């Protein structure tokens, strides 16, 4: 009796149990880690506060509403040097998004084409694609960006070389596109009266294509007849819009760039830094996407295509209905991270003078205001939110194409 009392009424918790008892040990480690972590953060913040105080600066974002006082040559929204630093950062952000979206589109096209061609049974084509991938992947993207910019500056003609009767340079594509060392001048669409009708008809025909697709599928499932839906969709895409275009008296025209004085006027001006950045990022990321596409297609077992052939599907439909839907599941996750990489690599724009968010906020604004802490914090937050939103959207897409297992 006494013995039992002793064992239950004795100290049931000893300090050493915090370390040796697995029930409490994880707690101890965590508390210890938390204290260390907070101490480190506290030390850094304390240092920062001391340093800011001694240099007479206060943490604050009011500088964002001060006039920026610098020009941005590439802009999607209205901006001039009298506007605020915040507006300049917004212009930069839009430039980042512009090159990221353009880059992702082109990189996907290049990547899918190269990835599929690398698996081609054609020896020479497969070798060429391997060469492309290994060259692009193993050389830093910054080198590609700077090289592209250098080629634009050194190899393309100056605008004034287009002048005169026997000019040294001529415009390409029947005089509609001018490739100069300042950038590309391409025709700009002009919308006159009645152009809305054409645009509306075009949108309606897109809706029509969607309905036709549904109807054709329903018909195939009901009767087994397969319509030549690709050709019909192509016809719906082009014919009504073209017919209305001519019926309305060609209300949409093109404004061609023209040489006036020392430079081209009119048309759309694509700055060479934008093109150099866009092309080099797309070509570089395209090589990585190509590898993802190849790995995805190779991950589908050979039995799948054999089974599809045994059912009598043609190679094209086998690819479309059997291989691609399965390969897509393998391809999408690496594709997401490549898109994110491209977006983050677009910050290298600063090397060629393209004014993206890094160039405006962490470049000129930082230098002018001297607010390194605030600008870099803001910059990191912006990139973080871009990364997180891209991965949220792509993960949602990934979820929607995931295999539904029963």
């Amino acid at each position: 009796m006494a013995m039992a009392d002793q064992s239950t009424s004795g100290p049931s918790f000893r300090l050493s149990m915090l370390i040796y008892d697995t029930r409490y040990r994880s707690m101890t480690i965590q508390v210890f880690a938390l204290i260390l972590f907070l101490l480190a953060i506290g030390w850094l913040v304390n240092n920062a506060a001391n340093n800011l105080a001694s240099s007479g600066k206060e943490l604050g974002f009011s500088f964002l509403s001060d006039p920026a006082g610098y020009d941005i040559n590439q802009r999607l929204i209205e901006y001039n040097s009298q506007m605020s630093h915040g507006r300049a950062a917004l212009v930069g952000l839009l430039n980042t998004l512009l090159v990221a979206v353009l880059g992702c589109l082109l990189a996907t096209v290049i990547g899918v084409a190269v990835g599929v061609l690398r698996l081609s049974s054609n020896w020479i084509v497969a070798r060429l694609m391997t060469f492309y991938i290994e060259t692009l992947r193993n050389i830093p993207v910054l080198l590609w960006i700077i090289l592209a910019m250098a080629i634009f500056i050194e190899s393309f003609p100056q605008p004034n070389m287009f002048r005169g009767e026997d000019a040294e340079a001529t415009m390409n594509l029947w005089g509609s596109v001018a490739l100069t060392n300042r950038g590309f001048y391409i025709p700009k669409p002009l919308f006159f009266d009645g152009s809305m009708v054409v645009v509306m008809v075009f949108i309606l025909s897109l809706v029509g294509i969607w309905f036709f697709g549904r109807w054709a599928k329903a018909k195939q499932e009901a009767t087994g007849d397969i319509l030549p839906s690709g050709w019909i969709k192509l016809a719906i895409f082009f014919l009504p819009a073209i017919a209305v275009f001519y019926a309305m008296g060609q209300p949409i025209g093109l404004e061609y760039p023209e040489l006036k004085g020392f430079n081209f006027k009119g048309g759309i001006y694509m700055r060479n830094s934008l093109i150099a950045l866009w092309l080099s990022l797309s070509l570089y990321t395209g090589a990585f996407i190509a590898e993802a596409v190849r790995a995805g297609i190779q991950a589908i077992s050979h039995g799948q295509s054999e089974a599809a052939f045994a059912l009598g599907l043609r190679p094209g439909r086998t690819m479309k209905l059997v291989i691609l839907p399965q390969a897509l599941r393998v391809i999408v996750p690496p594709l997401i991270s490549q898109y994110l990489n491209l977006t983050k690599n677009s910050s290298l724009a600063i090397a060629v003078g393209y004014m993206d968010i890094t160039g405006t906020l962490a470049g000129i604004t930082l230098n002018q205001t001297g607010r390194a802490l605030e600008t870099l914090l803001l910059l990191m937050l912006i990139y973080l939110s871009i990364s997180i939103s891209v991965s949220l959207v792509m993960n949602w897409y990934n979820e929607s194409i995931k295999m539904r297992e029963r």
Partner: protein
Amino acid sequence: MTDLSYVRTEMLSEQAPPSGQQGIVKWMRANLFSSITNSILTLLALFFLYKALSGILPWVFQSSWNAKSLGECREAIAAAYGEGVEGACWAVIRERYQQLSFGFYPKELYWRPILAFILMLVAVAPVLFAGVPRKMLLFSALFPFIGFWLLWGGTIWVPVSALLGFVVAYGAAKLLPSMIGGLGATIAVILLPVIYWLLAFGPLADALSAIFPYGIESVPSSSMGGFALSITIGVTGIALSLPIGILLALGRQAPLFIVKSICVGFIEFIRGVPLITLLFVASVLLSIFLPPGSNFDIILRVMIMVTLFASAYMAEVVRGGLAALPKGQYEAADALGMNYWQTTRLIIMPQALKISIPNIVSNFIGLFKDTTLVSIIGLLDPLGLSTSIRANQEWNGIVWELYGFIALLFWIVCFSMSRYSMYLERKLKTEH
């Protein structure tokens, strides 16, 4: 009645297959002209190859190796190969290859980075190839100290005193467990060297170098540059990011909420921002977070940032390997009575790392390529030097030769790394 039937009694000798079914013709039919589309593709590819090679090859070979400027180069090419011939001006490489390799490192001291590079190859050999004697790993452990001393120079007592910290840790690990018990010893092994480095390291190095002033000429960080700089930053990052990445991955997998949150927060933050923003932090912001008056080397700051950046990516790669392991491996190790670190070290990590080799190596390649970004914050890596060479009066207008040379060197390093990872995968493959 005679039997007219004919029965052959001897075997027919083997006949050669029809000419279309053997050799080059069959190969071409199968691989180049198997269908109409393929034939068109082949012809297009051949046309493209012809166009590319007929442009590139004469440019490469009708070149000039001996000139002082681009203009001289063009004159020499015109004189040798006729007017209007466009040739490469390799003279720029010949004149600047030392700068591209070593930056502004003093010319008479070039032997130091070269020796450090050779020693580095010796040090990585036992890590890379199992055939090399295991004893050489000791040299690999010493190499970081030798290498940094060779590159930066200065008194020999700094690396020696830094090394002493590890000796302290080793001694504590050997002696203390029997004296103060396992847990106390673990804490001591972590704390003692840190205390040593914080308090004793500086005075000790100063005192020793005052007594025995032995050292080599010290070279400031501002003279570092070229491929020597890229390789230094790259190798440091590679060597440190893997262990840190493994720890982060283990922290992320751990059933400890706070540790896990810290690791996840760190990894996701680093992976969400571009490296260039971290380099900006290293160049303009890090001094704000340190005690007033403390100022440490820009290359060291960049190395820290590159390592942190790479280790976040490494953590995700290792986590992928951990996730791919079947749960039975953990359970089996538990059943054998192993503790957490034994399980991790002996059962989990060898398998998880093996699975993630391709991704680990592609991370290494990415890290090495990312070292070029330091040119944006003003360090003189090959790309930073190329800008100044192109701005130079003599070489103004040079593009392909310079970037081609830099690209080739990067390509060789990165391509050999990817080939090595394939070799390692084959070597470690155990399934049938």
